[in-house]
C-alpha cells in the first residue's frame, strides 16, 4: 500500500508514539491532587509548554481539546458570539458548519484570499471575526496571512487562523503576525488522533463551549486525552524535509501533467506536500477507485461520513466549474520516499490513459 493521503492524517511519528505510550503507562488524571495526578499533570503541562513555545504563546493561552474541529468551533463560539463573522470561501467544513450564517470572503482563481474583497468586507462589517486557513487541505494553497492580519488590525477585527495543514510543513509565527487565535490538530502532523488545541493571543478571554469540570482554566471541560496530547507535543518540531518533499511533489505533478492532468492551484504559494490534480471529464470517484485498486491511497473533494464524494466547494470557489468533481488530492506524508513517487506515477499513467481515452471517444 502506498499512502499518499497525509492531509487526511499523517503517519504516526516515532517520537509521538513513544510519548503517547509513556503517557498511557503513567495513567492518572491531571485534576487529581495525589501523586498519580501530579505525574499526569506534569505530562500535560510539559506538553502545554512545548505547544506554547512552538506557537510563540504563553502556556496559559494553550487550550487543549479533541481536535481542530473543536478548536475552530471554540474560536467561533468564544470570539465570534458578539461579532460579525467573515470566513474564507475555501475554509474547511469545521469552520463552515460552525458559522453557517457567516459572510464569505471570495478567493482568487489561484485559491489565495482576495485581499481587496476582504478589505471592503471589513468596512461593511466593523469589528468582525475573520477566519482564514493558513493552508488549504485540498490544494495546499497558502493564504497571505500576514497581509490579512494587517488588514484586520487596521479595521479593528480579530483574525482566527486554522493552521491545521500548515503546522509542521510550513510554519509561521501566526500570533506574531497578528492572529488572535489558531487551531491545530495533532494527527495532521504525526501525533495520534484525538487531541488538538486552540492557541490564543495573550489576555483574550475564552468562554467555554463545553463547561464540565472546569478543566483548561474553565475554558474546556472534560478530562484531557493525555496520551494524544503528549503525542501531539512530541510530534511538534519533528524533522521535516520540505525541500525534498516539494521536489517529489513536482516530479509527481510533471508526470500527471504529461498524462493529461491539470494541476489546480499550482500558480500560488503552496504546501510542499500537496497537489490537486484534475482529469478533465473523468469523475473523481473513478480516479480514486482506480488508484485504490492499484494500492494507492489518495482522496478527492470532501468525503461525507458515508464516503460519498461530492464536488469540491474549494475548487468551485476557485471557479473551476466541472473540474471541481474531477480532481483528486495527492498529499505526501512526512516519511515519503522515492519508491512512493514511482509507484504513484506507475499507477496514475494507465488509469488516466484508460479514463481519458473514453472521454476523447465520446467527445
Amino acid at each position, binding site marked *: 500500500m502506498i499512502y499518499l493521503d497525509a492531509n487526511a492524517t499523517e503517519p504516526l511519528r516515532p517520537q509521538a508514539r513513544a510519548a503517547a505510550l509513556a503517557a498511557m503507562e503513567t495513567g492518572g488524571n491531571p485534576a487529581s491532587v495525589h501523586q498519580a495526578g501530579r505525574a499526569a499533570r506534569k505530562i500535560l503541562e510539559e506538553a502545554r509548554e512545548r505547544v506554547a513555545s512552538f506557537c510563540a504563546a504563553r502556556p496559559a493561552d494553550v487550550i487543549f481539546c479533541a481536535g481542530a474541529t473543536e478548536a475552530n468551533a471554540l474560536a467561533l463560539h468564544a470570539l465570534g458570539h458578539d461579532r460579525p463573522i467573515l470566513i474564507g470561501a475555501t475554509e474547511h467544513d469545521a469552520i463552515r458548519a460552525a458559522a453557517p450564517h457567516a459572510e464569505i470572503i471570495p478567493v482568487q482563481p489561484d485559491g489565495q484570499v482576495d485581499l481587496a474583497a476582504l478589505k471592503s468586507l471589513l468596512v461593511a462589517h466593523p469589528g468582525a471575526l475573520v477566519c482564514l486557513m493558513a493552508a488549504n487541505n485540498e490544494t495546499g494553497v497558502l493564504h497571505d496571512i500576514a497581509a490579512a492580519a494587517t488588514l484586520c488590525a487596521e479595521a479593528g477585527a480579530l483574525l482566527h487562523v486554522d493552521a491545521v495543514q500548515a503546522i509542521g510543513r510550513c510554519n509561521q509565527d501566526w500570533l506574531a503576525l497578528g492572529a488572535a487565535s489558531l487551531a491545530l490538530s495533532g494527527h495532521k502532523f504525526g501525533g495520534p488522533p484525538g487531541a488538538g488545541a486552540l492557541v490564543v493571543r495573550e489576555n483574550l478571554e475564552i468562554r467555554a463551549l463545553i463547561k464540565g469540570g472546569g478543566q483548561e482554566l474553565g475554558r474546556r471541560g472534560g478530562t484531557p486525552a493525555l496520551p494524544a496530547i503528549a503525542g501531539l507535543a512530541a510530534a511538534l518540531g519533528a524533522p521535516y524535509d520540505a525541500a525534498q518533499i516539494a521536489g517529489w511533489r513536482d516530479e509527481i505533478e510533471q508526470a500527471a501533467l504529461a498524462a493529461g492532468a491539470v494541476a489546480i492551484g499550482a500558480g500560488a504559494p503552496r504546501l510542499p506536500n500537496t497537489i490537486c490534480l484534475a482529469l478533465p471529464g473523468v469523475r473523481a*470517484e*473513478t480516479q480514486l477507485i*482506480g488508484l*485504490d485498486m492499484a494500492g494507492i491511497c489518495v482522496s478527492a473533494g470532501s468525503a461525507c461520513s458515508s464516503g*460519498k464524494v461530492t464536488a469540491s466547494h474549494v475548487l468551485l470557489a476557485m471557479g473551476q466549474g466541472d473540474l471541481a468533481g474531477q480532481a483528486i488530492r495527492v498529499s505526501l506524508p512526512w516519511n515519503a520516499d522515492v519508491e512512493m513517487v514511482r509507484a504513484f506515477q506507475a499507477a496514475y499513467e494507465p488509469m488516466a490513459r*484508460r479514463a481519458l481515452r473514453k472521454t476523447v471517444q465520446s467527445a
Partner: protein
Amino acid sequence: MKVVVAMSGGVDSSVVAGLMAREGHEVIGVTLQLYDHGAAVGRKGACCAGQDISDAKRVADRLGIAHYVIDSETRFKQSVMAAFADSYADGQTPVPCIACNQHLKFGDLLDMAKDLGADALATGHYVRRLDGPNGAEMHKAVDETRDQSWFLFATTQAQLEFCRFPLGGYASKAQVREIAAEMGLAVAEKADSQDICFVPTGSYDKIVEKFRPDALSEGEVVAEDGRVLGTHQGIARYTIGQAKRLPDKAAHMVVKAIEPGTRRIIVGPRGSQSRIVKLRDVNWLTAPGALRASVKLRARDSLHPASICPDGSGAVLELDEPAIAAPGQAAVFYEGSRILGGGFIAA
C-alpha cells in the same frame, strides 16, 4: 475475474457480493447514492446516506471487499425523478425503476466498471443471463414470483453481455436469505425494499408537485361523447384503465385517455380495449424483425399473445385479444422464459 457489484444495502445484492467473493473473484462493491435520504424522509440533519449505505458498508467489511459510494444524485434527479414527473404531466404512467436501471445501473455504473478495468457488473436482480448461440440471452428468474425481467427489458445486448445476475437461478427468496445468514450478513432478515425507493411514504404526489405542479392542477372528467361528468385534482393521479378517483357520475367507468394539453380525463365503459398498441424506443435482445411473442403490458400482468412488427426505432403490437395498454408503461416480449425485447407504450 474482477467484478463490480451494485450493492444497495439490501439482502439480495449483499448475497451477490458474497457469492462473487466466495467464487474467488476480485469484488468491488459500489453503492449509488441516488437521493438525499435526510431530505427524502424530511428529517433535518439526518445523514444524507441513511441506513442502506451503512448496511452496504458493513456487509462489505464483513466480506472483506472494497466498497465505494458514488454520488449519483444529480443524474437520478434528472433521469429518473424529473422524467417521472414529466411523464405524468404528459398524461402517461411512468416506470421509474426502468429508467433507473437503464440510465444509472446499466448506464453510468456499467461505464464506470469498464473504466476501472472490471470484467463484469453483477447485480441482485432476479433474472437470468444464459449463454446462447448468438451471445447472452435474458431469461426470467426461476422464481417467477420474484422475476424482474419486465423492469430490465431496456438492457442492451452489449450491456447484457457484461452483466451477471447470480440470483436468477435460485428457487426462492427464502433460499437467498438463508445464504445471507450462512455468510453472517446482518441484513439477512432485512425487509424487502418498497416499490418506488424515492417515495418513502408511498404517495408520489409530492414528487410530481415539486417537479411539475401543473400536473396536479384541477381539470375536467369528460365522457367519450364530450359530456362533462365532474372535475379531478390533477392528471398525474390517473392512469389508463383506472376506475378509482372518478366522480360519481362516472361510476363503473374507467379512464380511456388523458389529455395533457386540455388537462381532461376521458372516461368510458369498461371492456372497450385496444388491440393495436404502438411502442417507442424498442430494445431488441434478439435479431429485430416481425415475430410472434407473448407480451406483458404491466409489471403484474398476464401474458398476451401478439404479433410484433418493427417500425423504425419503435414497433407496432397487434394483440390477439384486446387489453389495457397505458402509455409510459413497458410492453415486454417473451418467448417461453426468454426476453426478446420490449418498448415503451406510446401515447
